[in-house]
């Protein structure tokens, strides 16, 4: 992966907001995150674990496994998910848990959910899911909810505490409006406001949802219509990390106290915004595919402003 030509180094303080925004325009190469303070370069996850034994809480993010997808962009989505879980199992310090930011399946078929479960459970970790639009395709939206909806509200949102941080799983793939983007809806926003009430502002917040909560590229629907309202409720918190999937590529930006990050898919890559006529599965040479799929590891150390996020491709 090429290093970008802007003269940004580890310290973001010297980077003007305009520069950051400039970078946003070509983001999607997975390079942008090198300019943010506290975010390490992409390292092999195993190497990283050996080099610096992470202190504090570590959890993993996987996303967009699209089990059932069998088109030319990756005829074996189950195989690459298995490879991703293999990477997870190779980590020396066992992560506390895993989050999956949706599109577990490609077509919401019961067999696809079952196959995904069979593979993901090999990591022997608790997994906190949020649904993608591909998980809600069955007529009654039953298969996802039966498996992962227990103890959640509405279409499947919830929160929990772990390692001194507060985690919030949101659903922004339901009741989408013509011409619009992802959608949280009034009821969920009300719940979110309520959920955050009384929380100490020094408590790190991790929000995860399928579609990016920030506007990545509205022409392709990559954003959430009422995401800004959710972010309003998060103002004032010292450390907020927003983890998303959906766009099948690493993208990151930092705005004030909020770090936004999208994860790679374990199934197939999508083009960078505006570089193709449309989003959708991108066929690359077989040798390159595994460099574009992967998992993310997030390390949270008490007292650190930002959570360190390491993106690891299935293969360099």
């Amino acid at each position: 992966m090429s290093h970008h030509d802007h003269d940004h180094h580890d310290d973001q303080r010297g980077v003007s907001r305009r520069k950051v925004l400039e970078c946003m325009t070509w983001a999607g190469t997975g390079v942008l995150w090198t300019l943010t303070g506290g975010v390490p370069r992409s390292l092999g996850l195993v190497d990283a674990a050996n080099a610096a034994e992470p202190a504090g809480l570590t959890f993993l993010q996987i996303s967009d496994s699209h089990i059932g997808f069998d088109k030319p962009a990756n005829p074996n989505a189950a195989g690459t998910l298995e490879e991703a879980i293999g990477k997870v199992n190779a980590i020396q310090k066992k992560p506390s848990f895993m989050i999956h930011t949706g599109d577990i399946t490609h077509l919401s078929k019961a067999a696809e959910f079952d196959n995904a479960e069979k593979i993901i459970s090999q990591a022997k970790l608790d997994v906190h899911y949020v649904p993608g639009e591909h998980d809600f395709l069955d007529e009654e939206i039953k298969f996802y909810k039966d498996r992962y909806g227990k103890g959640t509200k509405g279409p499947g949102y919830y929160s929990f505490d772990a390692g001194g941080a507060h985690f919030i799983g949101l659903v922004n793939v339901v009741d989408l409006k013509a011409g619009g983007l992802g959608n949280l809806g009034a009821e969920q926003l009300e719940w979110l406001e309520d959920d955050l009430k009384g929380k100490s502002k020094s408590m790190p917040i991790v929000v995860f949802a399928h579609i990016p909560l920030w506007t990545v590229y509205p022409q392709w629907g990559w954003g959430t219509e009422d995401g800004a309202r959710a972010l309003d409720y998060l103002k004032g918190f010292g450390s907020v990390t927003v983890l998303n999937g959906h766009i099948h590529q690493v993208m990151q930006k930092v705005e004030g106290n909020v770090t936004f990050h999208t994860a790679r898919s374990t199934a197939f890559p999508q083009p960078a915004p505006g570089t193709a006529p449309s989003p959708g599965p991108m066929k690359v040479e077989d040798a390159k595919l595994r460099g574009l799929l992967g998992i993310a590891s997030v390390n949270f150390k008490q007292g650190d402003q930002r959570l360190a996020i390491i993106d690891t491709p299935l293969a360099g």
Partner: protein
Amino acid sequence: MTYAALRSLGLAAAATILLGFASAQAEELKVTIDNFTFTPAELKVKVGDTVTWTNHDDIPHTVVSAGKYRSKTMDTDGTFSFTFTSAGDYKYFCSLHPHMTGMIKVE
């Protein structure tokens, strides 16, 4: 075969001919989905015409016209057909990718 059965067969045949005549003017029109785009984005049809959408993408799509019609999820090469029986403008979109919108104008 009884006389009654023959007679009802005859009626059925006549009904078929009548239906065929009535629908002789009705057309079958197509909208394709490629690269997350409905083509044509706007289509003019007449009352009685049938429109068939075909998804050529490697990603599933739907066709939803609020309160009018709603397709099941169309996987690659999946189709959905709807016959328009009254005039009007039928805006529609893909409920999975709502930035995809289209319009059928029925005259």
